[in-house]
């Protein structure tokens, strides 16, 4: 039977609420939540979401940290190494919710003009492909530390990326060794489905995040009810689900398998005007949202949903996100043509 989706709370990375976000992450971790998704929009004045996720890693033990971040208006090599670094730092608790920005503002930041939606989808697909090639550019056993031969890292266990796409190219290998999960789970949230496009959502992704938009004041009952409804619409009805149907679904449509249920909006509205008001309230010590209280509402909802087998059980410390999803850890296959000692091998061939 397919593993039910992991319950996730979306945290916007607003600087004014940093203290409360830390407290909330700790409280949700203690309450057994599966994951946090961290969103950030620099144009609106949010902190960088990868930084926030990494900052929360040492403060939490078991929950996973899924970063929702743009694939397009960035350097793909930087993005890939930042995400795999988050996986190292969190001990395999990292994931990536792919976003595709097509607005002028995001493009102008990096000196580009906005891509048309179709070109942005193609680039997104290239960036996801490259990220995985970067993540797979070191074998798990590449660092050999052989005192006898003096070899620290074996070049035959590294491979170039050698990607040439329509809009960028990456040589590789990574500057970071392979991370605990090998490949970070790549997911597409409902909110981003159209912009990200079919290739990533239906062929490349490891799964879908079902978005459940909630009012900040939603009770545990309301949260659980909204999740039930959303999962029902997605074809997941928990313990009543026919195991055979679930297996077929998992095997045939892995990229669109619901892996996360993302609770969006619990921390309130995120428009700039509100942020100012929010920040003033936070300064005055009267921020509307109280971490402990919100964590207990989410924990109550999670308990109800888990009782029905609708969402995955609470993770334990040391669980990777892949483990929460029931996905195996993939091996690396070294491609002889991309092996990073190919220059030496070629010399030897010539010498012969």
């Amino acid at each position: 039977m397919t593993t039910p989706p992991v319950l996730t709370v979306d945290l916007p990375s607003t600087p004014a609420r940093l203290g409360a976000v830390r407290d909330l992450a700790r409280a949700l971790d203690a309450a057994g939540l599966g994951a946090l998704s961290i969103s950030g929009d620099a144009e609106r004045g949010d902190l960088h979401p990868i930084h926030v996720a990494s900052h929360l890693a040492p403060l939490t033990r078991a929950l996973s940290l899924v970063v929702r971040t743009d694939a397009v208006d960035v350097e793909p090599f930087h993005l890939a190494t930042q995400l795999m670094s988050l996986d190292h730092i969190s001990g395999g608790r990292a994931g990536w919710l792919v976003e595709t920005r097509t607005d002028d503002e995001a493009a102008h930041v990096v000196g580009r003009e906005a891509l048309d939606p179709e070109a942005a989808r193609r680039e997104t697909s290239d960036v996801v492909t490259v990220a995985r090639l970067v993540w797979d550019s070191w074998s798990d056993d590449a660092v050999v530390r052989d005192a006898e031969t003096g070899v620290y890292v074996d070049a035959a266990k590294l491979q170039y990326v050698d990607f040439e796409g329509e809009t960028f190219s990456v040589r590789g290998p990574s500057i970071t060794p392979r991370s605990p999960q090998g490949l970070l789970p790549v997911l597409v949230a409902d909110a981003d489905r159209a912009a990200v496009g079919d290739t990533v959502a239906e062929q490349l992704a490891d799964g879908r995040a079902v978005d459940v938009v909630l009012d900040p004041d939603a009770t545990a009952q309301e949260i659980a009810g909204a999740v039930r409804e959303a999962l029902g619409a997605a074809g997941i009805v928990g313990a009543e689900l026919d195991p055979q149907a679930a297996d077929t679904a998992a095997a045939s449509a892995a990229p669109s398998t619901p892996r996360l249920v993302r609770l969006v909006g619990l921390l309130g509205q995120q428009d700039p005007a509100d942020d100012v008001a929010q920040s003033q309230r936070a300064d005055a010590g009267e921020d509307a949202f109280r971490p402990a209280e919100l964590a207990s509402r989410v924990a109550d909802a999670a308990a109800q949903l888990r009782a029905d087998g609708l969402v995955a059980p609470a993770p334990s410390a040391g669980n990777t996100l892949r483990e929460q999803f029931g996905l195996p850890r993939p091996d690396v296959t070294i491609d002889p043509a991309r092996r990073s000692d190919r220059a030496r091998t070629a010399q030897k061939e010539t010498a012969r």
Partner: protein
Amino acid sequence: MSSTTAEQTTAGAAASPADTDHPIHAAHTPSGTIRLGVFFQGVNSSTAWRAPGAGDQVAWESFERLITTAERGVFSAFFLGEGLRLREHQGVPLEFDVAGRPDAQTLLAALASITRQIGLVATQNTTYNDPVDLARRLQSLDLLSDGRAAWNIVTTDNAWTGENFRRGGYIDHAERYEHAEAFVDVARRIWRGEDVDHQGRHYHVRASGRLPRSRQGEPVLFQAGVSPQGRDFAARTADVIFSPFGDLERAIDFRHDIVERTLAAGRSAESVQIFPGAEFILAATDAEAEDKLRWVREQQVGPQQAIALLEQYWGRDLTAYDPDGPLPDVDPLVAESGVTRGAGFQFEKAQELTRAWREEAAQKGLSILEFARSRQGSRGSSFTGSYDSVAEQLAEYARWGAIDGLNITPWLIPGGLDDIVDELVPRLQERGVYPTEYSGTTLRENLGLPALA
């Protein structure tokens, strides 16, 4: 020691620091304090990865131990290096040195959670980052750490590194500082909340600064270039220079030069601090420290590393040479040793250099292995001695005001700071030349830098 040093020093330095309040330059008053930082390079030949106790170079626990030890020792800063392509020799990644590290800022954002006062310095390249994106990331780090972030600005024109990035190789060597200066200007305007419309020679960026200022205002700027252009850039822009000049004589000369340039740039003499890179080999006695130095060099440089080091300059296969024999009697294959990529010394003249090395090794009777070990540590500065004699040596630096601090590269990860913090720091504190506690919570405060307007 001080008198001979002073005689050899040009440029108006005093004969002894006791003679005057301004031993190096009339405009410069020594702070009387030496601070320490730790530089985790993560990619180099100075980490003795074969030594007993050498730990994982990527594991969170290694970084946690290093930074908590440093903070216990009232270190000002924890410093991460950056290289955006794996170093190679003749098209093959270097196999004998430690390699592979986490992204600097991603790691520092996490380390900010487990520390309270130590500064967090990320080395970040101006050539293969986007200025607005980098500015926002650094500002995020500054906010997450509540005012402890710094940026070590480095430049490159290296098209080989550019193969990992959208722009490829797009910048000339001569242009790199001009480019870096425009880049830093864009970053600062973003930090100050301005609307930026920068039409540079290489790109046109439009964006607005939207994040609030941190407790220290904006990230502290470190800079590491020491060419004349790099020095002027630092004098105009930087708060701290990460220099390679750690021996007292050269440190005094460098301070004098930087003070001149800083004054010419319209800034006060104390507005740019100097932190040379350093390695510490410490023991209970001077004799034990000398023995330890030999042992550390053996751990750092084995026969394979020695041959590999020479190959990087000779540009040819030298594996047939005996590491215990004399230096190769052949000339290098390349006029400019550009075959090793990403190691930072490709502009030295190979022909000249290898000839000089052969002569030096022959004169001293050194084998390849002995010569390679003698070279190790020479690019930074090595402080070898008993805890007391090194403490005394540093107190002399403080009296001169030759440096503001030292940026230590531990030869052992993660335990390489233990003896420094447990043995050296208390002796420096007894001599009144090292902080006994953090003077504030921000990096700017803890370095004693002036507050931003």
